[in-house]
């Protein structure tokens, strides 16, 4: 029996069976995206709080659309307008959100571990939409779904992750997930972006600084975005990175003929990826976007749906204490 998920905080603590269950449950929602009428009433009356303490367009829209298509309402909290700017603590902000009685909270935060901190203190299900450089579990799940769809299975492939791995929570979640499925993982990028400690994240993982060697025999290539916003100083000139690590059509030919190219977006065409590759037949970039909706719908359905957890209302608790 599948251990019931209460939150989705990261891939690290999920079992292989739980991951497979989520991917299987995404299948009907993939099909749903092709319906002429994309509106269910399944989560009617439920409210999902989208607490984005860090700017996000794609993930926020994806979660908001997933909630809308399931019939749930959303409350939005965005970094630019948030009271965080006025100095409110994370706990006070989420407690305020909780007092509005949402049925689930989707949280993105620049501090690693923020969703765990929130989950420990609130009664509602928490879904991690990216925390610092730690994890981005829904991205890893949608990557896995895309790999499984395009390659027929998830197990046994050679996966190369390319670029700025140090600053990437996507890479950490991908490594955690693929590692559970016996994947051989090659991490490739400039040495300072591929630290040795990443090797401890999964059993069959190694580092490579030469892109030609990293692409040899690759079945899947995950290209990462160069995250200038997480760097305190420009560590490497763009021209140097392009020369050494851009995935070009010529370099892609070094991989297996049917190799799948993924990118979590937003892509910087001409920096980490050649536009020809991004738009080519081996690219799964747009499927990733659609699969993201399916994965998030499946997760919201299972985590937010169902009978409401009888969370003590903060105001009620206080009045009881006064009695």
């Amino acid at each position, binding site marked *: 029996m599948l251990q019931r998920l209460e939150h989705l905080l990261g891939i690290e603590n999920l079992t292989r069976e739980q991951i497979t269950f989520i991917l299987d*449950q995404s299948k009907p929602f993939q099909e749903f995206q092709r*319906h*002429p*009428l994309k509106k*269910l009433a399944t989560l009617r009356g439920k409210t999902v709080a989208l607490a984005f303490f860090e700017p996000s367009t794609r993930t926020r829209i994806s979660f908001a659309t997933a909630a809308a298509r399931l019939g749930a309402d959303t409350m939005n909290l965005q970094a630019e307008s948030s009271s965080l700017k006025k100095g409110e603590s994370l706990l006070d902000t989420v407690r305020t959100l909780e007092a509005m009685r949402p049925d689930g909270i989707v949280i993105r935060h620049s501090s690693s571990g923020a969703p765990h901190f929130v989950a420990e203190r609130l009664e509602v299900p928490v879904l991690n939409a990216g925390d610092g450089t730690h994890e981005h579990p829904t991205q890893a799940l949608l990557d896995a779904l895309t790999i499984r769809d395009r390659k027929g299975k998830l197990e046994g492939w050679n996966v190369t992750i390319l670029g700025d791995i140090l600053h990437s929570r996507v890479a950490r979640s991908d490594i955690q997930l693929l590692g559970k499925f016996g994947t051989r993982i090659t991490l490739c990028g400039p040495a300072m972006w591929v630290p040795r400690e990443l090797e401890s994240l999964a059993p069959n993982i190694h580092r490579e600084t030469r892109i030609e060697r990293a692409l040899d025999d690759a079945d899947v290539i995950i290209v990462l975005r160069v995250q200038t916003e997480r760097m305190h100083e420009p560590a490497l000139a763009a021209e140097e990175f392009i020369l050494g690590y851009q995935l070009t059509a010529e370099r892609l030919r070094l991989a297996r003929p049917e190799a799948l190219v993924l990118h979590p977006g937003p892509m910087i065409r001409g920096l980490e990826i050649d536009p020809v590759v991004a738009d080519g037949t081996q690219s799964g970039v747009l499927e990733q976007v659609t699969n993201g909706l399916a994965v998030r719908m*499946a997760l919201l359905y299972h985590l937010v749906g*169902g*009978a*409401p957890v009888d969370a003590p209302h903060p105001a009620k608790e206080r009045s009881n204490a006064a009695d």
Partner: protein
Amino acid sequence: MRVVEKRQLLSAEEIGRTLQRLAHEIVEKSGGTKDLALIGVRRRGVPLSQRLAAIIRTSSSVNVPVGTLDITLYRDDLSTVAHQPVVQSNEIEFLVDDRDIVLVDDVLYTGRTVRAAMNGLFDLGRPRRIRLCVLIDRGHRELPVEATFIGSTVQTSDTEIVEVRLQEIDGEERVMLVDRVS
């Protein structure tokens, strides 16, 4: 909860004969098989719809399209259950727009499954007509839903359960009336 078998409602042979009759009725009352399509409701409506299509194929030499509908996302009791039920895929390879659709299920009881199935169908398009075919009608409706094609009508009390066992799913073939005893 313990259940005891009270009596057998249909034998394997009777199920076979009932489906023969239902298939003929469907063709006859549809004024031909043009636009006709069968959609089985998961789970036991699925093999039933496939068997009906096979009978029509043999008797009328036409291939009536068959699809499968999963109603999980359209259930009206989801906000009362603690664990969300597993969702499965629909398998409908044809457009439902302007089709003459016969929904197929094993037992008609409260009518709530049929309501959910109709909602599910509407999300896929606009059928010209939807009718319902069931193997057993056991009464106790909670919604204004009736079947056009009924295999067998059975009087039941609401503690009783009609158990349909089909070869494809259960490895045996019969319909039983069982009762809950506490």
